[in-house]
């Protein structure tokens, strides 16, 4: 089965400067593919090229080189857009329209038939929780409401593939939870979701695979599971008190005392020895957990690695 998204070397350079224009690379040639039904997280700090990539895929910006395929078709084919939804970063809509009118207009443009449209609009408004304000002009919407309206227009025409640019930005914790739930639902419905964010915990929780982009270059791609796999078989042991039994110290474990608990990191095979030591001293064991790299660590590592090997900045 063809991948939902295939990015084949898309790149973008801008000419900057006032008098003598020099090229500035916003995106180095990008090779990336996303399978159908996946939730893919596109991670990177601000200005890394996430939005540029999305704008290229949407045909809002033309690439300096490279092509892409969406759902098996050329990415520039207008017909394929009937099957994708897009939520831009910090969306802005026609503020003189009401939510209902906006969705009606977008529905018309996406080719949703008249009879279905009203039904779909009602469904989608309920889903994002905007039914009460459907008759209110968008200029009166709060940021959170606008974000929800944006999601509504992205899924209105029941697309197979949804692109979200920083969908959580500017939302309060409740709003963020709602968006996370929605992305989960979309995945359940078998849709492919491609979203960009710089909030790693969201990516960790939602994505099947992530890609990390920095300064226009893709630094790493992989399944979240494997990227945060256990680190060299280490474990973390947590116990009550402030004592550290000498036998544990003898194991060469690192330990930190915080308040009334001690956390120690040691090799997996030292687990039994540690448990015995604590029992002998009658120290209460709180927890033993396998140590996993967080996505954050992976992220920072990749970025630092890139900086030291790359040397020059682009």
């Amino acid at each position, binding site marked *: 089965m063809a991948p939902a998204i295939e990015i084949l070397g898309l790149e973008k350079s801008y000419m900057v400067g006032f008098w003598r224009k020099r090229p500035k690379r916003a995106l180095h040639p990008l090779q990336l593919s996303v399978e159908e039904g996946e939730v893919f997280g596109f991670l990177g700090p601000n200005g890394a090229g996430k939005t540029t990539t999305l704008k290229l895929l949407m045909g809002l910006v033309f690439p300096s080189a490279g092509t892409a395929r969406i759902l098996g078709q*050329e990415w*520039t*084919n*207008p017909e394929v857009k009937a099957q994708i939804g897009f939520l831009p970063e910090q969306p802005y809509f026609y503020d003189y329209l009401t939510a209902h009118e906006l969705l009606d207009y977008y529905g018309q443009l996406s080719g949703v038939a008249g009879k279905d449209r009203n039904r779909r609009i009602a469904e989608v408004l309920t889903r994002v929780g905007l039914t009460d304000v459907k008759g209110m002009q968008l200029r009166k919407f709060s940021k959170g409401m606008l974000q929800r309206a944006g999601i509504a227009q992205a899924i209105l025409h029941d697309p197979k593939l949804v692109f979200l640019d920083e969908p959580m930005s500017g939302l309060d914790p409740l709003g963020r939870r709602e968006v996370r739930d929605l992305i989960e639902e979309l995945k359940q419905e078998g849709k492919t979701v491609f979203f960009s964010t710089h909030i790693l915990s969201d990516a960790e929780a939602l994505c099947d695979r992530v890609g990390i982009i920095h300064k226009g270059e893709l630094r790493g791609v992989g399944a979240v599971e494997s990227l945060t796999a256990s680190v060299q078989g280490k474990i973390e042991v947590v116990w009550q008190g402030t004592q550290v039994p000498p036998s544990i110290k003898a194991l060469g474990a690192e330990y930190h005392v915080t308040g009334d608990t001690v956390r120690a990191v040691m090799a997996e095979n030292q687990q039994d020895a540690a448990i015995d030591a604590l029992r002998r001293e009658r120290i209460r064991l709180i927890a033993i957990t396998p140590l996993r790299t967080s996505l954050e660590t992976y992220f920072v590592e990749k970025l630092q690695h890139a900086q030291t090997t790359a040397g020059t900045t682009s």
Partner: protein
Amino acid sequence: MRTRRRVTVVASLCLVTSMALSVLLLRRIDQVRPQATLEDVLYVNSPKLVKRLSLGFSGLMACIYWTRTVQYFGHRHYNHEQSYNELAPLLEIATSLDPQLLPAYQFGASFLAPAPPNGAGEPGRAIELMQYGIDHNPDNWQLYYNLGFVYYTELHDYKKAADVFARGSQVPDAHPSMKVMAARMAEHAGDFETARMLWTASYQTSRESNIRKNALEHLRALSVDEQVTQLQAAVTRFGERSGRLPSSMAELAAAEHMNGVPIDPDGNPYVLTREGRIQLAKPDDFPFVTKGLPPGYKPSALPRFHVKG
């Protein structure tokens, strides 16, 4: 990218075709509306009203009206029209929008006064226009010249002409020829020399092509008039000496010790008729001549500037 290329091709074709078609149509529209720029004058011919409608941009409007004037005259003259009814309003509007539009006065002097088909046939309005110019530009001697010009050429009022030239010569920085002209008007108004001076000055002081061509035609006519007069006198002398008319131009030329047969400014020999009249070979080529025309001559073509460069 294929769709984009197709749109580009279609849009480019559409652009080029519609551009070509709109230009073509524009030319057709111009043919349907030959008096286009005159519509304004036909409906709004009060200078005061035009000035108000110019919203303060009277200088620019004056230039536009002046250009329209020149085009109007040139177009009609070329098409051998018989009347120039809109010339006076056009000039009046142009000069009221900008009283310092000196070329307009000169144009009025050359073409408002002469009778149709050489001009608008309105010497009274011409005088008024010149006077208006003088009133608004008292330090400009050329406007006195223009006024004197009208009195001399069209009204043949040599006394008034002399008067005007005299006044004009008193303007500071007036050209010395003004004094000369004043004197000549007073005493030798009817001379060829006076007329020649006037038309030469007209030719030299204007850069407008209609005025220059007109002046040149008058000078050619003067040349012919002068030559014909001289030749006619020669015929008379011949008759007095020999008691008969010369049998040919060659005989006359020999008797007068001329260098070859006399020719007109175009290089065609003059014709000596059986009755002893000196005539032009091609009178149609000299619009303003008063002598050397066959009896009962009527201008077959209407006035045109014959001068070739």
